[in-house]
């Protein structure tokens, strides 16, 4: 059965009034960068430069930009496997992200993690997790550590934990929200609800499809926001983070967006109805926001085109860098298995004897 289209008004930024033109321009630059990066990732996958699984943020750019505009440098970010855009906007150079996708030693995780496992200690991007919901308990524990390490207040750090709509049905989600509510942890759980867990609609997967309501079981405020509205996403996420850092009140934030393409690069999404696909395309936040900024005089058509070209050029540089970077050295295969060296750690390659026969 084809996925049922959700009935939601076409995306518009509610109002850009009062927002400085520079900020709006900056947000469009970021959206354009994510869009360009993801389109190029798709192309590089088709050209077999990228292996494994590859999940794109296409259609979710306003959500990505809004959330990353809200989070502070001192905060910790945990995400699922649809993580490229978040890594870019957390401040990681596109070169290092693309190199990771290419499996090169210059990648953010040295080529060991790939698309789903982007991690950067410096910018506090704490993964990149390939298993649905695997990030939720560790993110909750990071918030527990923050409670040990610093007092609540406006300058305190918080944790933002991203997850998909399908993730709200796993046990770890509920166990973690319970712990966060019980222990009063500084964390914001963000459900990036693109309406589909692979090919299964939210309505078909969740007995309570209004996912933000699930916070109620844990006395946690639940908020839903239009994910195609970059400013609304940013403001809602800021408010939620404020509650987390200042009052140690965990928050569940649901961001409604559309996935423009399939679950991963290789998924043609034939299960989607043409109506749903049409709505997703009409809701596409990148052209919407672009048109909005041109209509309101923030950008001229030429400005917008220049931004798109610059994003494209930036991504081209990343591809050249990734392509020219060396593969990881096989001699380093066991390098990161243990932090504390240990006696008798295995180091045999396939077929090598584990013991000398004497």
């Amino acid at each position, binding site marked *: 059965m084809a996925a049922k289209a959700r009935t939601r008004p076409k995306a518009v930024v509610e109002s850009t009034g009062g927002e400085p033109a520079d900020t709006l321009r900056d947000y469009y630059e970021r959206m354009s960068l994510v869009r360009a990066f993801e389109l190029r990732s798709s192309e590089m996958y088709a050209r077999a430069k990228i292996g494994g699984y590859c999940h794109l943020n296409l259609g979710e750019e306003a959500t990505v930009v809004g959330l990353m505009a809200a989070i502070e440098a001192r905060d910790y970010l945990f995400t699922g496997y649809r993580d490229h855009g978040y890594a870019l906007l957390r401040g990681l150079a596109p070169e290092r992200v693309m190199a990771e996708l290419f499996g090169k030693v210059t990648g953010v995780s040295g080529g060991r993690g790939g698309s789903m496992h982007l991690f950067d200690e410096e910018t506090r991007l704490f993964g990149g997790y390939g298993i649905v919901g695997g990030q939720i*308990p*560790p*993110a*909750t524990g990071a918030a527990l550590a923050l409670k040990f390490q610093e007092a609540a207040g406006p300058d305190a750090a918080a944790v933002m934990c991203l997850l998909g709509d399908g993730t709200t049905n796993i*046990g*770890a989600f509920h166990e973690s929200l319970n712990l966060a509510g019980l222990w009063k942890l500084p964390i914001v759980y963000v459900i990036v609800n693109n309406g589909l867990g692979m090919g299964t609609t939210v309505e078909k997967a969740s007995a309570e499809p209004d996912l933000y309501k699930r916070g109620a079981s844990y006395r946690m405020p639940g908020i839903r926001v239009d994910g195609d509205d970059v400013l609304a996403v940013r403001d809602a996420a800021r408010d939620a983070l404020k509650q987390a850092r200042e009052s140690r009140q965990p928050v569940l934030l649901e961001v409604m967006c559309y996935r423009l393409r399939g679950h991963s690069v290789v998924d043609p999404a034939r299960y989607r109805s043409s109506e749903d696909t049409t709505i997703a395309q009409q809701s596409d936040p990148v052209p919407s926001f672009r048109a909005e900024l041109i209509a309101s005089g923030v950008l001229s058509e030429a400005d917008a085109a220049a931004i798109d070209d610059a994003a494209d050029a930036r991504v081209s540089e990343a591809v050249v860098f990734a392509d020219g970077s060396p593969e990881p050295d096989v001699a380093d295969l066991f390098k990161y298995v*243990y*932090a504390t060296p240990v006696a008798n750690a295995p180091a045999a390659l396939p077929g090598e004897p584990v013991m000398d*026969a004497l």
Partner: protein
Amino acid sequence: MTETVNTSRTITYRQALNETLRAELERDEKVFLVGEEIGVFEGSYKITAGLLEDFGPERVLDAPIAEEGFVGAALGAAMLGMRPVVEIMTINFSLIAIDQIVNHAAKMRSMFAGQVSIPLVIRMPGGGGQQLAATHSQNLEVWYAHIPGLKVVAPSTPADAKALLTAAIRDDDPVIFLENLSLYSAKGEVPDGEQVAEIGKAAVVKTGTDLTIVSYSRGTTTALEVAHQLEGEGLSIEVVDLRSLRPLDRDTICASVRKTGHAVVFEDDWLSYGIGAEISATIGEGAFDFLDAPVRRVAAAEVPLPYAKALEKAALPSAADLARVVREVLNISSNDK
């Protein structure tokens, strides 16, 4: 010359664990304990007795029944530099948390190219023989011993409980710390002062020349009992206590078997694909030319462990089973002696 004071006390395995947790909580403020019923209830097996009172509810943190949640939360806290020590009530319940242990704790350092380390200890008792029936009597340590990125230790004495737990807490990697229900009240000599074991090293806990018994945890106590018993029959048995299941000290095992020419593995887990299978393969590679008989394994019967005492007893490997197999390997009829 420095003067060393060699004092020791005879205490239980439980007391050794309790004192070590206390000492590490005192030494390092980044250490905290988390688990079900470890605070007010003082632990299902009273390992954390008195610690809530002395260290408070933040550092002796009672968790709700949510193993996946609190094991994963401990992992996340470790990512930010804390040094959590988790108690899982029994190894059976660790399966609820296995995604966080195997898919996450074990992988993160490698997958993120060393950008993060996971100083996490997960303590849990295994073992049957207490009429707890099939779901509460398992020895699943081999599940964890199979996983690169984890370290798995299994002390058999109070002294090792102290030294290995200290090492585990100070280690920057995830360490599965295997305890055993039937060892908690076992007594032994424990040196005073700081003791830090080297993870990854086995110990020859009794020397001998005729046959090597390889075992770990509770099994080592049985192996020693049998070795001493057979000594009275004129047999010289060496006992290797693994202490660490990952990494595995293959050198110590093979060095012993090269000397004795005979080996029996005594293990509480099920036979197929068990710890003994790995030891046997290791001996096959590292001491084949020295063997005078095939390596034998004495392991649990491959059945979900029944409640009824008679069935439970029959299913679990005993001292008598081990003694019988040792004699078989040495080709000695028990009537000869």
